[in-house]
């Protein structure tokens, strides 16, 4: 029973994640939505990837621009292993394929890490960027290992499941991804509490001091990089199982950037930050991009808003509420939030409408697309929608400024109270 009480968050998350796809279950046809399951599997994989990235950035203070190299090489290893299994050369349960990816990622983590971890800070960042470029170019040039442009494709149905699962449906794969995501996340969480994990924090804070308590920062970096490669490789192995193909873009700079963005948006400070960040990033990329071809602009704006107003990421915003929650007055923020919500929504809708109008007049119109909201076609040349968008933006901004003042007063008062009660120092 205490187990349940101690780990209720994990259990709750598991239940929610298992139940969530059923919201999109198509009862008339009796099948899951493949899109939703694939998207959620993608989130699972990218969450592991982002967490492994945070082992470098959050834990050890290492900014990498080439983390996808480890994901991709792990994925290639897993793909080759699956093909060997399929050919009958070796035997491996389907469930352990991600582990093969993990070992591959770990191997390359060690080999490449030996090179990159000689330096730290900006030099480290630049070396990883250079390596990322080199590996992604090599992935296109060398057919043997990387399969060239077509990549390496696999068939995940290989009848070696430990549980007799065929892995034909996305649902089965999703369950496997979920299981591995939980295992990997827990292992990574535990890793933060090991001597290596703590010393990685120490080298992040003050690498010189770490030397004078007996540690070689380079070895710390190397081990941390190698372990991070292991988990990135697991993500790579799962990637292979979901998409049944691995191509050169898994090692690309764009994938690396995704990890960085997810970690930063979610917040590098808390363990769960990168997971939140991943959800936002994946939904933006794979969800919003289906609706609007201006999605990159929204991503850009989101980053700028985040770095300017919420440098601690989403998790930082949540943690800000902890003191108020501790003194039991979180409820008092409900009303201010509710009051700030409509103007915030207004600003956002105004902005989105404006961008979409612009985008449709310049690009969309040429594509012969019609700008439709809920089936109503909107004429982008008429002045009315533009006026509405501008008005919503401007009025919303003014309104939110007014609300912000009241909100801030309430917030400061509550924090003050929390300080008085000694919850915050």
């Amino acid at each position, binding site marked *: 029973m205490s187990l349940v009480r101690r780990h209720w968050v994990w259990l709750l998350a598991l239940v929610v994640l298992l139940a969530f796809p059923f919201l999109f279950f198509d009862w008339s046809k009796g099948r899951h939505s493949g899109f939703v399951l694939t998207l959620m599997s993608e989130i699972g994989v990218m969450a592991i990837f982002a967490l492994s990235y945070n082992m470098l950035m959050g834990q050890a203070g290492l900014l990498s621009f080439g983390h996808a190299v480890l994901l991709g090489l792990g994925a290639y290893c897993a793909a080759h292993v699956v093909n060997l299994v399929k050919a009958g050369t070796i035997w491996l349960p389907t469930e352990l394929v991600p582990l093969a990816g993990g070992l591959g990622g770990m191997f390359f983590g060690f080999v490449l890490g030996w090179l990159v971890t000689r330096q730290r800070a900006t030099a480290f960042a630049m070396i990883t960027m250079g390596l990322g470029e080199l590996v992604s170019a090599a992935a296109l040039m060398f057919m043997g290992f990387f399969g060239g442009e077509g990549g390496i494709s696999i068939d995940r149905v290989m009848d070696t499941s430990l549980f007799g699962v065929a892995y034909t449906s996305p649902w089965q794969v999703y369950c496997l991804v979920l299981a591995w995501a939980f295992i990997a996340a827990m292992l990574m969480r*535990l890793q933060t509490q090991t001597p290596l994990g703590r010393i990685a924090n120490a080298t992040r804070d003050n690498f010189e001091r770490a030397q004078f308590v007996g540690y070689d920062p380079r070895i710390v970096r190397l081990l941390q990089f190698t372990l991070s490669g292991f988990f990135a490789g697991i993500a790579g192995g799962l990637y292979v199982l979901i998409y049944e193909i691995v191509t050169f873009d898994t090692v690309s700079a764009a994938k690396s950037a995704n990890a960085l963005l997810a970690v930063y948006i979610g917040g590098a400070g808390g363990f769960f930050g990168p997971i939140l960040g991943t959800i936002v990033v994946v939904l933006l990329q794979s969800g919003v991009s289906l609706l609007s071809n201006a999605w990159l602009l929204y991503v850009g704006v989101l980053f700028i808003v985040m770095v300017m107003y919420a440098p601690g990421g989403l998790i930082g915003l949540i943690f800000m509420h902890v003191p108020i929650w501790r003194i039991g007055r979180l409820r008092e923020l409900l009303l201010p939030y509710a009051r700030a919500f409509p103007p915030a929504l207004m600003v956002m809708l105004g902005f989105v409408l404006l961008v979409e109008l612009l985008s449709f007049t310049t690009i969309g119109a040429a594509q012969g697309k019609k700008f439709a909201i809920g089936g109503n076609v909107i004429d982008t040349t008429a002045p009315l929608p533009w006026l509405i968008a501008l008005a919503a933006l401007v009025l919303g901004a003014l309104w939110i400024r007014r609300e912000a003042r009241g909100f801030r007063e309430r917030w400061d008062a509550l924090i003050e109270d929390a300080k008085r009660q000694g919850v915050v120092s």
Partner: protein
Amino acid sequence: MSAPAVELKAVTKSFGRTEIIRGVDLSIPRGERHAIIGPNGAGKTTLFNLISGRFPVSSGTIAVNGRSTAGLAPQEINRLGLSRSFQITSIFPRMTVFENIRCGLLWSQGYRYSFWHLLGGQKKLNDAADALLERLKLGDRRNLPAGLLSYAEQRALEIGITIAGGAEIILLDEPTAGMSNSETDAAVELIRSVSEGKTLLMVEHDMSVVFGLADRITVLVYGEVIASDVPAAIRGNAAVQEAYLGTVAA
């Protein structure tokens, strides 16, 4: 008779064309509390940096417990049983006070780079860290990020990290700099108690601290040792008076 704890022979150090340390010989026997004094720019901190391996020497040799430290990285010298503190506070600001101390303990307790031990379950280690915290009078600050401590508390933590590993030889670089009188007294008591039975080498400007603690004093002026003797003799040394103490006394 075993080898001295720290032994310097004809050590020099140059930065570019400027010679900061100009042929220092120094031998510190085990168990001695030794202070290095000298005017600003005499090269005291540089000497510390050489002994602890932060910089390589330009010429000469340094031995710790009879072993040459030539070519050794700071962490390797540390593992020979030498630990140092810094003049400018050097702690792990984003980690808690407790974590800071525990990091100082990890290597000496044999955990090395382990990623298979969970620290929460290492009772002996955690108890040792807590015991040291109590000694440092930082027990009630245990779970605060170290960066939020007051200056004096950070200095105490600095000393704590330095001695946590149980090093035989402790180098303290101006441990009481910038402290008020009462804080200094507390710090002196702390240093006295933690250096019990160990070799202590310290750089210090506060003469009351130096004369109160040191068994022997070395005076460094412009990168050269002009005297090295027991406190009473140093007090009476004319050259020292002139070069250094004289200005203080005047």
